């Protein structure tokens, strides 16, 4: 078997792949996008919060506490979407050796963990006046707490592998595998209120429609979009920080070698 053409083809493949993975090309898009995502997200989420606090009517059963919905739902969605993002970038890292995927996984972890923690905190604050308890070990709450611990484990692994210089500022393959394995928790969180008797109510928004009345629902669209855009901006900022640190480290090594 001819050795040389095979290698040439692999190099061509890699070159094609790296054209899309090229940090310089990525930064050209990421730099202007960061500000746009950040400010439009912030405006939308603040507008959504203001509408949810002052414009919508109180719930027939819960009264004013229903307003926690407008922050609790987006934070839950982004906590779960964050881990889905980590799993996708882990797959891209393990299969295609995509260099930006490893950086993206590490950048998603911190805002994902933050939103999972906020989701648990706002849920607890909501649970006290409505259910009569701060915390119960039901399926939904337990699986969401497991997600927070998964995030913390992932961050610890990612930081350890970055210190060892694995993957050029990204995460090690072990960390990526951990991200992929942890994804099993996402459908469990989603289905927990359907499979098991739980204190948490069933899903309000499904493919069949919404059981939240339109008069109460509309600010949720604003906060969902706003928090999501903001999340994207934070991920871009953290990716840019990691890429710049890589550049500094590479430069330092070159200078040290003289």
């Amino acid at each position, binding site marked *: 078997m001819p050795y040389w053409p095979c290698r040439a083809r692999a190099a061509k493949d890699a070159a094609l792949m790296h054209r899309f993975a090229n940090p310089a090309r990525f930064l050209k898009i990421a730099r202007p996008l960061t500000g746009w995502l*950040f400010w439009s997200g912030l405006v939308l*989420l603040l507008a959504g*919060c203001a509408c949810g*606090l002052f414009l919508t009517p109180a719930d027939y059963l819960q*009264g*004013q*506490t229903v*307003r*926690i919905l407008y*922050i*609790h739902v987006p*934070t839950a969605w982004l906590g779960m979407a964050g881990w889905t993002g980590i799993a996708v970038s882990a797959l891209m890292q393990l299969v295609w050796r995509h260099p930006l995927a490893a950086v993206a996984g590490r950048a998603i972890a*911190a*805002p994902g963990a*933050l939103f999972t*923690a*906020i989701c648990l*905190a*706002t849920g607890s*604050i*909501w649970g*006290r*006046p409505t259910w009569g308890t701060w915390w119960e070990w039901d399926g939904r709450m337990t699986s969401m707490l497991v997600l927070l611990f998964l995030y913390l484990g992932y961050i610890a692994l990612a930081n350890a592998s970055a210190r060892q210089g694995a993957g050029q500022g990204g995460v090690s393959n072990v960390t990526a595998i951990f991200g992929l394995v942890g994804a099993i928790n996402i459908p469990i969180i989603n289905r927990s209120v359907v499979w098991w008797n739980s204190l948490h109510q069933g899903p309000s928004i499904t493919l069949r429609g919404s059981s939240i009345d339109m008069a109460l629902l509309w600010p949720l669209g604003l906060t969902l979009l706003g928090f999501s855009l*903001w999340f994207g901006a*934070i991920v871009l*900022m*953290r990716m*840019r*920080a*990691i890429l*710049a*640190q890589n*550049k*500094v480290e590479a*430069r*330092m090594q070159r200078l040290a070698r003289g």
Partner: protein
Amino acid sequence: MHQWTFVIAAYAVTLLGTAAVSLISWRSMHRAEAQAETLANRP
């Protein structure tokens, strides 16, 4: 009024967390990019 205490607490937690992560992420990005810039401009 009692219900509003819980609502305000939940919004305060969320906005504080969001602001803190915005600030930390922006500062680490800004610092790293500035450092990369000065190193790149050094002969």
